[in-house]
C-alpha cells in the first residue's frame, strides 16, 4: 500500500496544524514522532479519512479520500485506533469488537465471530471477552481499541498512540504483534516513545510545527547522533542534554564536553533529541 501526501496543510482557524506536508510511505511500519502540537494526530485523522486537508492532496493506494466512493473503499481497507479512544462501557469486550466488525461490513456471523476471537487473542484479551468494558483497566481498554482496529484484517493500520497506557509487558507484546502485522501491510503509528519507533519501525517521520522535519529510517535518525554522544564523570552545562545514568556517569548529547569524555554509540532517541534541539521552538503560523 502506498501513501502519497502532496502539499497537505490543515488549519483550525488561525492555527496551522499541518503546513505543506509532502510524504511518500510504502509497505512497512512508519513511526510518527514529534512533540505535542506537532500535527501528528491531525495527520493521522487525515489518513483515517476523518479530516479533509485544507490544501493539498492525499492518495492512498491511488484512492482519493475526498471522493466519497474512494473514501468508502479506503475505509474498507483501514483499521484505525484514535488517540481519544471511546468505547461503549455497557458492551462486553466481545460485543464491542463484534459491533465494529459489523460496521466494517463483516456480515457473515460465523466468520465475523472467528475474526473477533482472533483479534482478541492477538491482544491477549480472550480471557476477558465476556467482561463489560466499564470494568476494564485503561491498558485493557486500549487493547480493545487495537483489537477493533485489527478485526477486519486491514491493509492500512493507523494507530494513534497505541502504546499509551500499556504496561512494559503489554508494550513488548504489542511490539511483537505490530512487527508481525507490518509484514504485507502499511502501518502508521504515532507515539511519544522513541524506543517503540526504534524497536519496530521501518521508517520514521518527525513532525515539527506542522512540517516534516525528518523522514528516513531509524538508523538514519540514529546516525545523526554519531560522534555526539558521550560519557563523562561530570555534568556538562553546555550540552544539548545530559543525564546521570545508573553507573553514576553522565550521558551527554551534543558537542564533546570538556575534560575526560568517552564516545558512546548513539540511539534513535539521541538522534531525535539532536534533530529537534536544532529546530528551535515549533512555530504555528
Amino acid at each position, binding site marked *: 500500500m502506498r501513501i502519497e501526501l502532496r502539499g497537505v496543510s490543515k488549519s483550525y482557524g488561525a492555527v496551522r496544524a499541518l503546513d505543506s506536508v509532502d510524504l511518500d510511505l510504502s509497505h512497512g511500519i512508519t513511526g510518527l514522532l514529534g512533540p505535542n502540537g506537532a500535527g501528528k494526530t491531525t495527520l493521522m485523522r487525515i489518513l483515517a479519512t*476523518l479530516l479533509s486537508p485544507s490544501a493539498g492532496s492525499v492518495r492512498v493506494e491511488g484512492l482519493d479520500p475526498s471522493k*466519497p466512493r474512494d473514501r*468508502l473503499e479506503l*475505509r*474498507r481497507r483501514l483499521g*484505525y485506533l484514535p488517540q481519544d479512544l*471511546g468505547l461503549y462501557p455497557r458492551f462486553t469486550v466481545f460485543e464491542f469488537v463484534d*459491533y465494529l466488525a459489523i*460496521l466494517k461490513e463483516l456480515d457473515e456471523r460465523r466468520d465475523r465471530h472467528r475474526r473477533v476471537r482472533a483479534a482478541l487473542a492477538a491482544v491477549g484479551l480472550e480471557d476477558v471477552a465476556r467482561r463489560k468494558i466499564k470494568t476494564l483497566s485503561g491498558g485493557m481498554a486500549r487493547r480493545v481499541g487495537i483489537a477493533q482496529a485489527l478485526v477486519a484484517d486491514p491493509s492500512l493500520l493507523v494507530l494513534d498512540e497505541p502504546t499509551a497506557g500499556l504496561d512494559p509487558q503489554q508494550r513488548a507484546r504489542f511490539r511483537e504483534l505490530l512487527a508481525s502485522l507490518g509484514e504485507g501491510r502499511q502501518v502508521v503509528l504515532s507515539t511519544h516513545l522513541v524506543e517503540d519507533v526504534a524497536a519496530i519501525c521501518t521508517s520514521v517521520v518527525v513532525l515539527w510545527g506542522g512540517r516534516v522535519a525528518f523522514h528516513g529510517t531509524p538508523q538514519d535518525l540514529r546516525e545523526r547522533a554519531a560522534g555526539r554522544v558521550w560519557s563523562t564523570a561530570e555534568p556538562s552545562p553546555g550540552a544539548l542534554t545530559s543525564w546521570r545514568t545508573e553507573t553514576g556517569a553522565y550521558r551527554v548529547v551534543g558537542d564533546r564536553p570538556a575534560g575526560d569524555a568517552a564516545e558512546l554509540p548513539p540511539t534513535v532517541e539521541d538522534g531525535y533529541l539532536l534533530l529537534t534541539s536544532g529546530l528551535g521552538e515549533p512555530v504555528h503560523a
Partner: protein
Amino acid sequence: MTTLARFEARKVLRNPLLWLGAALLFAFGVGNAVSYWPSIPADGEYVHEGLVVLAPFALLVGALLGLRDRTSRAESVLASTPLVARGLVVPARMAALALASVGVCALVFAATALTSFARGGHGYPDVFFVLDAGLYVALAACGGFAIGYVSGSRILSLLAAPILPGMVFYRQGSQSGSIADPSWLLPSPRLPGRFGPLGYLPDIFPVHALYLAGGILALIGIVWVRAGRRESSSAARPGLVATVAGSVVFLAAGGWLAVQPREVHVFGPEPADWVEIHTEADYRRLGRARRDASPDAGRVLATACVETGGIGACVFPEYGTRLAIALAENAAPLAEFASLDGVPQSIRMVPTADHTGIEDCAQGDDLLVGSQRWSVEFQEYEPVAERGFYCAVYGRRQLVNPAANALHAWFAARVTRDHTGREFVRAVRQGWGRRAAEAVGHLADVPVADVVDRLEPIWDDVRTRDASLADLRRALGAPG
C-alpha cells in the same frame, strides 16, 4: 445494514428500561381489566389506555441510543468505518428501535390477552389496533433517538421522556368535541366507539397505523439525511427519499383521518344503517330521530345462546357462551317475576353502544344489551337484572311514578351489593320521602313470591303510572 439492525435490536431488547415500561403496561392493562372480566372485547383497550406508561421508557431508550456515541466518545472510532461512510448506521439503529418497540408492545398485548383468556375471556385480536399501538411506541422511541442524536443533551432527553407522551395523553383526554378536533391525528388517538364484533367505528386504525408508519419513516429519513450529509451527498440521498416517501404517506393518511367522524352509531350490520357524528348538531338530530327506534330493527345477530335458571341469553358468537352464561346468571333474579308482564326473561345482544339516546330496554320479551356497554359494565354497578326490572316498571317513557320508584329501588337493593337494606331505605327516604322509604322497607319484609302475588292485581297500573304509593302499600298489606 440488516446485520447491524439485528445487533442493535438485540441490544435494545436487552435494555431493562424497556422491559420495566412493558411490565408496568402489562400490570396496568391487567389491573384495569380485573374488575371487568370477562370483558372480552376490551382487553386490548386497557393496554392501549396504558401506552402512556410505556412510551416514556421507549423514548428514553431511544434517546440513550441516540446519545450513545457522544457520551461514550466513540464517534472517532466509529467514524472511520465503511458503514458510517455509507450513512447506514443511523437508519439501522432507528429501524432496530422501531422493530423492537413494536415487538415489545405486541408481546404485552399478547400477554394481557392470554391472562384474560385464562380468566374466561374469549377475545379476538384486532391486528391493526395492536400494530397501531406498537407504532406509537416505535414513534416515541424514534423520536427519542432523534432528540438524543440531534441535541446531544442528556437533560433534554430526560425531560422529553415524560413530557412528550404526557402531552399526547393529556390531549387525548381533553378533546374539544368540535369537528376540527384533531384527536385522530394524535400519535395515540382516543379510542373510537367499540362495537364488539363489528370492530371500531369509525375504523381508523388501519389508516392510523399507516399514518404513524409514514411519520416514523419521515423521522428516520430526516435524521438519516443529517447523518449522511456529514459523509457525502450520496450517503444522504436515501434519507431524502425516505423523508419524502414518509411525508407523503403521513400527510395523505393524516388528511383522511382529519375528515373522519367523531363517532359512528350502528343501527344494523350494514353500513347503510350506520350514522356518522361529525358535530354536536348531528348528535342532537340522531337523538330526536331515533328516540324510540330499536337499535337492531329486528335483525338477529346474537347466535351464541344459553339458558340457565329460567333466563335465556344470546350474545354475538365472537364473545363466546361464557359471556352469555354470565349475563343469564346475572339476570337470574328476573325469573322470579316471570308472571309479571314485561319482565324480560331473555337477553339479546344488539350491535350498538351507549350514548345513542336510545333506551336499550325490552323489545318484545327480550332485554336488549349493547355490545360495548354491557360487556364492560354489567358486573359492576348496573346488573342486568336491575336493568331488566327497570325496563319492566318504567317502559320507555320514564315518567315519574312513586310506586314504580319504590319497586325499582327495592329490586335494585336486592340485586346489588353496594348497600345494606338499611342504608338503601335511608337513601330512598332522602331521595323520595318517608312514604316511599316505608314502602321499600315493607317490601323488604315480604318474601319475594308473596310480593309477586300481591303485585299482580296492580301491576298494570304501576306500569301505566296510575298506581300510587298508597295503592302499593295496600296491595302489600302494609299497615296504615
